[in-house]
């Protein structure tokens, strides 16, 4: 088995701040994902990456950047945090033909 580690678990930022969320996986999976979870809106795809140094935009990429410098890691940057924003960001990974495995999430609060 493997594990997906997201850091930090909780992130409090200020309006306009640039914030970075990190994700590491030891499954040796090729594809990694960032999803945003808001109550009542499900899991919305922000970015995904099919291999090292590859980036693909999801449906919610505006306001975010991503980076995949190594196969095992995938980071997400909130380019300018919005006041009163509150959401959980979930990192995930998979190999093609298999299911998605999720990390435990980073809970973002913007004050």
């Amino acid at each position, binding site marked *: 088995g493997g594990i997906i580690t997201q850091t930090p678990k909780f992130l409090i930022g200020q309006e306009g701040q640039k914030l970075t969320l990190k994700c590491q996986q030891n499954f040796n999976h090729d*594809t990694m*994902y960032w*999803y945003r979870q808001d109550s*009542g*809106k*499900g*899991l*919305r*795809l922000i970015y*995904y990456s*099919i291999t090292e140094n590859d980036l*693909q935009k*999801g449906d919610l990429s505006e306001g975010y950047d991503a980076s995949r410098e190594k196969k095992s890691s995938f980071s997400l940057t909130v380019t300018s945090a919005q006041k009163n924003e509150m959401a959980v960001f*979930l990192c*995930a990974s*998979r190999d*093609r*033909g298999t*299911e*998605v495995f*999720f*990390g*435990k*999430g980073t809970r973002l609060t913007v004050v």
Partner: protein
Amino acid sequence: GDSVTQTEGLVTLTEGLPVMLNCTYQTIYSNPFLFWYVQHLNESPRLLLKSFTDNKRTEHQGFHATLHKSSSSFHLQKSSAQLSDSALYYCALTGGYKVVFGSGTRLLVSP
């Protein structure tokens, strides 16, 4: 693009009654993978069921679903709800690298 529709945001049931959560999808792929994920409070989503075979029933932990390509559906069912089934359920779809989730259905089972 691909999309998944879960029409019920909230389903409330009494223990012992049957469960049916709806999932329909749209995709350009002729052989998509369909998944059901379950997320309990303060946990990450985890796989419950998966299928890519048309008209074949797949079962796990008392739940079952059948992929029907003719109606683009993958409804989740269980014959008798338990209190521990209370959770958020997501239907998801992939035909390639991108994995798209529905908006989720919250199931609340009461005594």
